[in-house]
């Protein structure tokens, strides 16, 4: 994994520098392109002929990677809203950075914004530790307070003679098309730094994220790691300003990581997935905003990320809602079938397996069901080819349908009864349960026990033949061929 991500990172860096070096510096603004056909636009976008498209795409890809990597850590640390706080808190820094040079110099803005962002996290920490104010209120306070200072500064800048043309409002919702080569270099450097630090300190990040007390106990500087992460977060927020905007950059941190969190349990895979999702949303976002001339990029990136999240939420293999629901239904269905088969086995057991057939009435009585319900259950079994039905022709007045177990039905029934009775025996013998207390427990576990466990139980109980209630336990031989020796 580490090798792979190192490869990815170096590849991305390579492509970046190649494109930057070969691209013309004077980029035509995307909004100046007036193609109207969708396909033409599509081809034009993906041929990367326009340098501005190239910048936008590269910037979005790298930004997605960076946000995915860092976002994974804040999502597992339950700090997702710290990203939101941080992104609003950088606003006064952006304004001050602008005032410093009186131009939109990316480096001045970068420094100002990073300082403001870090100051924001420190103030949240102070409020939280020195007063009884809860962390969420502290975050809301800092978020809105800093943001308001930024707004005031912005409105003051706007009335300066140079301020009107500053285009600082592009920082609100982002315009990937306005990315310059300076911006791109900054994004690349921050992404590379984040990737490098995470690789270098992967173990430390991992331990402090999941168990910071343990981390402190084994001598890792948990606080240092926390603030390092905050610093990297501030960096990633700042590089995202130009492309995604202040208001929505926190979503680039949270959403791809939350999507990855739905798909895997392993941190290194989560990092990989999150950066992939981040890249996808970045690409899609810049593409959509390209289609609709000069629409803001940020919202489209977020919508793309949210669509991926929704897909993972619904269809994700392990934690998706639909697969889980299906698995649940499947399990209920199987348990019901197994219980039905068990009931048929019990009825046959009463006649010491002399009667091959079981009537639906008998079955209904055994399971305490009205005839209609019983017929439904049997139909399910027929569908699974566990039983066959035939009309009894013994008595035309009392005509009833007879149920015959097929070999596979017989085998499953034996397996379930065997599981049930072995478990009952195990509880009475090894756990000193009373024999009348074991049934409910066995009723649950019989559907779950695997063959290996059952063999082990059998071995431990020294190959028993009768359960605590004196009933025969179906043996391994019954499971092998089709019929019980009777």
């Amino acid at each position, binding site marked *: 994994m580490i090798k792979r991500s190192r490869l990815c990172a170096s590849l991305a860096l390579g492509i970046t520098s190649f494109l930057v070096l070969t691209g013309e510096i004077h980029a035509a603004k995307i909004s100046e392109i007036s193609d109207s056909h969708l396909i033409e636009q599509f081809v034009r976008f993906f041929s990367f002929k326009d340098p501005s498209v190239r910048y936008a795409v590269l910037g979005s890809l790298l930004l997605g990677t960076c946000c995915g990597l860092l976002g994974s850590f804040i999502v597992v640390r339950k700090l*997702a809203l710290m990203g939101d706080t941080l992104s609003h808190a950088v606003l006064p820094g952006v304004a001050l950075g602008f005032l410093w040079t009186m131009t939109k110099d990316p480096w001045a803005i970068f420094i100002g914004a990073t300082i403001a962002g870090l100051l924001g996290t420190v103030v949240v920490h102070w409020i939280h530790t020195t007063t009884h104010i809860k962390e969420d209120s502290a975050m809301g306070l800092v978020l809105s307070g800093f943001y*308001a200072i930024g707004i005031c500064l912005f409105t003051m800048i706007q009335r300066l003679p140079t301020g009107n043309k500053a285009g600082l409002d592009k920082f609100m919702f982002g315009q990937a098309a306005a990315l310059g080569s300076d911006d791109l270099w900054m994004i690349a450097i921050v992404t590379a730094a984040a990737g490098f630090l995470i690789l270098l300190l992967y173990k430390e990040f991992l331990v402090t994220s999941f168990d910071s007390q343990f981390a402190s106990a084994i001598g890792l500087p948990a606080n240092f790691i926390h603030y390092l992460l905050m610093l990297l977060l501030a960096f990633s927020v700042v590089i995202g300003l130009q492309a995604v905007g202040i208001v929505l950059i926190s979503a680039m941190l*949270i959403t791809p990581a939350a999507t990855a969190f739905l798909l895997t349990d392993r941190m290194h895979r989560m990092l990989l997935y999150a950066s992939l999702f981040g890249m996808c949303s970045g690409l899609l976002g810049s593409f959509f905003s390209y289609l609709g001339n000069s629409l803001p990029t940020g*919202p489209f990136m977020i919508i793309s990320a*949210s669509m991926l999240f929704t897909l993972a*939420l619904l269809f994700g293999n392990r934690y998706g809602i639909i697969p889980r629901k299906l698995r649940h239904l499947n399990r209920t269905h199987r348990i019901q079938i197994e219980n039905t088969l068990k009931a048929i086995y019990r009825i046959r057991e009463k006649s010491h397996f002399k009667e091959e057939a079981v009537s639906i009435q008998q079955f209904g009585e055994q399971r305490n069901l009205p005839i209609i319900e019983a017929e439904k259950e049997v139909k399910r079994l027929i569908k699974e080819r566990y039983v066959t039905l035939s009309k009894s022709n013994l008595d035309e007045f009392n005509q009833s349908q007879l149920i015959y177990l097929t070999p596979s039905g017989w085998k499953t029934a034996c397996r379930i009864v065997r599981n049930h009775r072995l478990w009952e025996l195990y509880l009475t013998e090894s756990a000193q349960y009373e024999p009348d207390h074991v049934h409910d427990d066995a009723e649950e576990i019989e559907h779950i026990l695997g063959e290996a466990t059952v063999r082990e139980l059998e071995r431990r109980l020294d190959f028993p033949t009768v359960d605590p209630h004196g009933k025969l336990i179906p043996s391994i031989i019954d499971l092998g061929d089709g019929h019980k020796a009777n």
Partner: protein
Amino acid sequence: MELIPTFDFKSFLTAPWIDGGWESSIWIVIMGILVNTACGLVGNFLVLRKMALVGDAISHSLLPGIAIVFLLSNSRSTGLMVAGALAAGLVTVWLIEFIHKKTRVKEDAALGVTFTTLFAIGVILISVFADHVDLDLECVLYGEIGFIYFDDSLPLIGIEVPWPVLQMAGALLLVTALLLLFYKELLVTSFDSGLATSLGIPVSWAHYGLMMVLSLVIVFSFESVGAILVIAMLIMPSVTSALLSERLPNILRLSVVFAALYSIGGLHLATWLDCSPAGAMVVCGFLLFCLVWLVSPRRGLILLWVKKLKARGQLESPSLP
């Protein structure tokens, strides 16, 4: 032109009332007080329930609700706007709960994903259908408390009262009435939901009711202070008062006082610096918070430092009996 004009205490105090015409100033102050009071009262219960950031989420996600309603109806009627906002608020709360409960995603991430998505949808709708939606993004970001007045006004006992102020006053009355009516229920459910359940108070109804009231307050404050600054109006009065008192009724009263202070202080600040009045109100609130945080007689930082110094002094010179 300088960025920060020279500070002159006398003109700082008088400028809003002399130079720009006191009429618009007084309406800004009144509107500010109404908005801040309504938000502050509801915000107290949010802060108590540790739901401060749910306020943040709802204030963002009302945007698509309002945008869709404006787009479909092609009008700007208040009733429709409120309906859209209430629907959007409920959808947000429901979505957050759904993601949080049905999957392994934690609550904070669920919140973050939900409101950013809805906000993004709103921004896209507004920028794509800019001609049909009478709502601009500037207003969402900065608030327009400074110049929405006198567009249309209503003569009331000889005074021309701007329509938005009337609306906000109505909303404030409604909110205050609802909070007074259900005060006991809100109190119990905020502090001890187990007790509330055993007393037969429907906890989830209280929750959704509060969220409806919150959406209502936010939608009326939206135009004046914008989607992001409204969070400050919700949280700041409550948090600042909580540093000064521990009884909820006192905190509620104090937050009304702070609401008025923000509004007046904000106007003076805005006139001095010539910046966005809504932003200045929040800056004023933030400064007041910092001040209270520093000097609060119960939990102030200065008190904390003094205590610390005293404790250190005692450690260094242990007095023997």
